[in-house]
């Protein structure tokens, strides 16, 4: 495992200039997540319309390049998708980070999958897996209207 595989250009780019960073007014779902050991935290806001489609999504927070890039890529990827599809993407992504070699969902286009796979480097760094998954767990929590703050500590 080369360090370059973890800190790829795309991660550095999204980490440094996260897309969808901030908060918008008419969100109707949100959730917080934090990673006390690292000091990473994230707040995901989204608007689910009457057709259960993610009309808009954004996040606030701070953390390492991996966690920022992951939240940035995630928000880009799920905008415009239906809730059911979002959940499938989340589960596919978490499965890939934990054990699988590739992404299996048909919802994502190949270039989108390539983008997400850029985060697969964290598999080699067990302590950093939670950095990559924090925003994804938080997104699930927002969709499920959970009041619990997501914690990545086990």
């Amino acid at each position, binding site marked *: 495992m080369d360090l370059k595989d973890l800190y790829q250009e795309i991660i550095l780019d999204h980490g440094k200039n996260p897309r969808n960073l901030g908060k918008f007014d008419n969100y109707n779902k949100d959730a917080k997540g934090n990673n006390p050991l690292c*000091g990473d935290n994230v707040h995901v806001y989204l608007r689910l319309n009457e057709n259960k489609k993610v009309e808009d999504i954004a996040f606030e927070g701070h953390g390492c390049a991996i966690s920022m890039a992951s939240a940035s890529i995630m928000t880009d990827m799920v905008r415009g998708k239906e809730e059911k599809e979002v959940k499938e993407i989340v589960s596919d992504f978490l499965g890939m980070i934990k054990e699988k070699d590739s992404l299996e969902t048909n919802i994502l286009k190949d270039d989108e999958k390539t983008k997400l796979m850029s985060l697969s480097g964290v598999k080699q760094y067990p302590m950093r897996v939670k950095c990559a998954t924090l925003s994804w767990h938080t997104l699930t929590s927002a969709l499920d209207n959970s009041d619990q703050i997501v914690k990545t500590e086990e």
Partner: protein
Amino acid sequence: MKIDDIKREFPIFDDKIQNNDLVYLDSANSSQKPRVVVDRIYDFYTKEFSNVGRSVHYLAVAATNLYEQTRVSVQKYINAKDKDEIVFTKGATEAINLVANTFGQKYLSEGDEVLLTELEHHSNYVPWHFLRKAKNIKIEFAEINDDGEVTLEAIEKKITKKTKIISVSHLSNVTGAILPIKEIVQLAHSKNIPVLIDGCQGAPHLKLDMQEIDCDFYAISGHKMYGPTGIGVLYAKKKWLEDLPPYQGGGGMINEVKKEGITYGELPNKYEAGTMATAQVIAFNESIKFMEKIGIQNIEKHEKELLDYGLEKLRKNNSVNIIGNPKEKGGVISFTIEDVHPHDIATILDEDGVAIRAGHHCCQILHDKLNLPATARASFGVYNTKDDIDKLDEAINKCKKIFNL
């Protein structure tokens, strides 16, 4: 003192770690172990093992003697007046919990104040927080100044008529500030307030003299002193150990047990309930001897040289920001790199075998005050060399390159 010779005493440096020579800069977290300590544990288990303080057979008596020898070694090492003032615990955390629990039980009630500082490790805050919940006491924090120090004046400012105990760190594990503990004790005693010193970072690096410092309690962590995990020491003045109630109940700490009631054992057994970490206590004696052999003055001098060299080197490195600038400072350098999160720093440094810590170092109060979610930290031990610091500096440069700084 030849550092190369000392380094050879530590088996961890014999082999490559992930194809790199290990540059271990995480001793404030836990130190590596010299061969004598590791061998002692093996020898005890393979040739001498028995439980202590109970049976009368040969092995039991021999093990008890070995166990008690460590107590005497610690007493001498920290110049305590009496060997009964040395209580073995599972670590410094348990030592502080022991004091908070027993002192709190007997002497603290609603509205009383415990004075800590903003520098404290969670282990010197959470045990007092339990009392805040259980007894409605108040916790005050002496403030740090811009250099990351806590001055005597900052302590004095927070002392009130309700202050019942002061509990402060000897040496900050983040800024490296060495607190004026002798002066703090003098001031507190002039107001009849006892003082606990969290000596986790003090004991491995500074000369200790309990009679000179005159503190009431001093907590020591064994695994940061080149000793095994699972062993710590509470030094407490005899008057306190006699006066305070026992901490945990069980075998070994009792005198007479009847259905109607129980009397407790003499010191130090009163505070050592159950089977203790026998092998670790016995091996800890080797850590003390190891440090004595090098000499604490030599350790202090060596680590000061490393600190000065490290500070000079990192200050010259653009975009590295060093946290705190205490006048009296131990071998700890916490830092940030502009725009790079400490966890990214730690992962990138690790790739070259440079082991540092990143995070809040169990000091969230301090990081909140500094307005930083996390910092990176390099901390030194006897085995470190200037070459280690050069490698740290090179790895930081690599990190900057990856992040285009």
